């Protein structure tokens, strides 16, 4: 009872990279370009990033400021739709039924979609607490930035009163903004690194303007509390330690590519990474399967992965026209 259908290009994931690839393909005249998005709305992670800076660019030496995440996400999706791509939300690609053939689940039923090329743009996620093997109890109040932003920006949920933010990559500063917006007092920001891994201005604003202490060379070594988080135990590189009382902790950054579909399709990963191995044209080792965006290299800003999606579209068109695919190293 699975209905079957054929398309030319199937893009999995309607984040900035996926919709940019679809928009470029459709604009260049590829007839049936379909984007599958498992969430209820297209746009990817920028949908819940309410800070600005999306789509910043330089034109003739002049910096043109970008916009907020949700606006940027909408703009990207609209561009793909205008170009003639189909974007289907609430559709999950559950697995491969054969080469370039994906099974899907949606409220409308089960489908089997056969494509001439597949572009995987499934993105990346932050490693949650368990995957970081942070010991201790399993209380409520433990977040990744992704869950925190959705809770606050999409649903207006209350998250807590006193928070500790783990990490100092740019995403950690986005988490700080979200917590402030939600009225949560940030007790401290903690990083195992020796200094912030984000632009100096951003780090300075957090530390000086918002007076959020940044504890460098410091790790969270235990979560405490039963039911609700009571605090985090910290250890500094020099051996000193302490307990910070808080009811919320946000584990930020430490992105890992969402490679399930790629791996289920037999796509080899690049050695030493969790990302599919791709060449400069975003081609994986599996004929006809491309990987773009943060799936291929966690993580780059939205504008960068969108540009990558557009470049990949050129390679996809070339493949559709010529059928040429590089022979993998092992087969040479």
């Amino acid at each position: 009872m699975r209905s079957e259908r054929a398309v030319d290009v199937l893009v999995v994931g309607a984040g900035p990279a996926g919709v940019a690839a679809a928009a470029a393909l459709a604009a260049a005249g590829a007839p049936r370009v379909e984007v599958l998005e498992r969430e209820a709305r297209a746009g990817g992670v920028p949908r819940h990033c309410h800070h600005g800076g999306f789509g910043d660019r330089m034109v003739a030496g002049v910096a043109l400021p970008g916009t907020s995440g949700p606006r940027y996400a909408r703009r990207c999706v609209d561009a793909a739709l205008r170009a003639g791509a189909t974007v289907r939300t609430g559709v999950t690609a559950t697995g491969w039924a054969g080469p370039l053939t994906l099974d899907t689940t949606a409220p409308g039923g089960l489908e089997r979609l056969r494509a001439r090329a597949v572009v995987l743009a499934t993105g990346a996620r932050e490693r949650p607490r368990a995957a970081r093997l942070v010991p201790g109890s399993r209380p409520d109040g433990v977040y990744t930035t992704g869950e925190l932003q959705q809770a606050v920006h999409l649903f207006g949920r209350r998250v807590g009163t006193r928070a500790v933010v783990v990490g100092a990559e740019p995403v950690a500063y986005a988490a700080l903004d979200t917590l402030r917006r939600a009225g949560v007092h940030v007790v401290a920001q903690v990083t195992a690194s020796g200094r912030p891994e984000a632009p100096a201005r951003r780090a300075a604003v957090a530390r000086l303007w918002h007076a959020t202490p940044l504890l460098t060379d410091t790790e969270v070594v235990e979560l405490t509390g039963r039911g609700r988080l009571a605090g985090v135990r910290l250890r500094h590189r020099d051996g000193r330690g302490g307990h910070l009382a808080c009811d919320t902790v946000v584990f930020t950054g430490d992105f890992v590519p969402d490679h399930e579909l790629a791996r289920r399709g037999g796509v080899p990963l690049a050695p030493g990474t969790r990302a599919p191995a791709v060449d400069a044209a975003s081609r994986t080792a599996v004929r006809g399967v491309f990987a773009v965006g943060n799936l291929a290299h966690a993580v780059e800003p939205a504008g960068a992965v969108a540009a990558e999606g557009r470049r990949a579209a050129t390679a996809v068109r070339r493949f559709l026209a010529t059928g040429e695919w590089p022979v993998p190293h092992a087969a040479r």
Partner: protein
Amino acid sequence: MERRRHGRVTRAGNLPGGAYDVTVVGAGVVGAAVARELARHPLRIAVVEASDDVGEGTSKANTAILHTGFDAVPGSLESRLVRDGQRRLAAYAAEAGIPVEPVGALLVAWDEAQLAALPGLAEKAARNGHHEARLLDAAAVRAREPHLGPGALGALDVPGESVICPWTTPLAYATQAVRSGVDLHLACRVTAAARDGDTHVLTTGRGALRTRYLVNAAGLGADTLDRLLGHDTFTVTPRRGQLIVYDKLARDLVRHILLPVPTALGKGVLVAPTVYGNVLLGPTAEDLDDRRATGSTAAGLAALREQGARILPDLVDEEVTAVYAGLRAATEHDDYQIHARPEQRYVTVGGIRSTGLTASMAIAAYVTDLLAETGLRLGAPRDLAPVRMPNLGEAFPRPYQRAEMIAADPAYGAVVCHCERVTRGEIRDALRSTVPPVSVDGLRRRTRARGGRCQGFYCGAAVRELLEGRDPTRPARGDS
């Protein structure tokens, strides 16, 4: 067929008046099984549970194995009840929709001492009535488990060992008990016990509860309750087991339950598939005093990873989905502590260690017989209300794969939790079920929602919205 009154499920407010015929303290897998077994009889039955859900203590954090009992102490009560319970639960699981996968077990020997212990274990298995256990040489082991680390010298093959869903099992018991008339009072801790003539009067956080007969299935608190009743025959020394759950992409690395060979130097850890399609590594075994110490430790996790890397080297390269720790209700005794006190109309079910899940239905039948011997008039048995639990297992079709379910109700095609492929229809069903969840963890144990590799990065906020009765596809703000 007679019309049966549904029991009540309460989490707040005063307890109902009047006396129950039987009250079971503890809604873990054992207490729930006892209540279900008693529910066949025309009795007024209550279960009181300190936490706010079924299976919230030891029952939720174990190794999820349906044991054959091949390695039990021959002749012990535990051996008998595990063997009987395995048979009963396997049949019940098929009927009630509890996922079970009969993957079999290999006890892998990594050194000469372990290899030398295998024939004795095969003999012990035979004395426990399991004659199918076979010795395998190193080449045969490698053929069975190609991803095993180097150095496996041989193994004992124990067919019949299975993996089971430890969450669905107590829920199925409790659901069937409640549908058959049992009252389930959650968030109801017993703090004192007294007598009023022939009646027990339990003091709880929600007022007094009167009952003619009493069953103590309080798990880690069983000795405390036993002392309230005036007995001092065992002490629970919680034994902590930390476990690491690896991502589903690790599932193809292992085919059997890989059990350690117990030797004088101690017991190692196991690597086992789960019915959810993950791989489990653990448990540690740490004797503790604190009955609430269900946290993991850096030392425990490091030790597990070290042992896991030897057993299945590729495993530790995969992502970790979850880490948890459970406390087994060990005592100073080598066997279950099940005692009837006819003069008190009281049965203690204590010291049910890691085999409790497997033995639960046999324990329930045994306890019911003890209650009858104690003087409880059971009355004529009748059929229990039917129960069919939602399938959480990967070996059986799940709603997102079922065209006919989605056609009848599109909510089964709306995937909310992407890592575990849990649909909106399943979450809705859980919230409307006989024993509904009140926490994200309770919802996870009923649906797997939020239990996957992203631990809520994608779906966490939406799942919480659903739990609170809101529609996450209509955001309050932002995204419009």
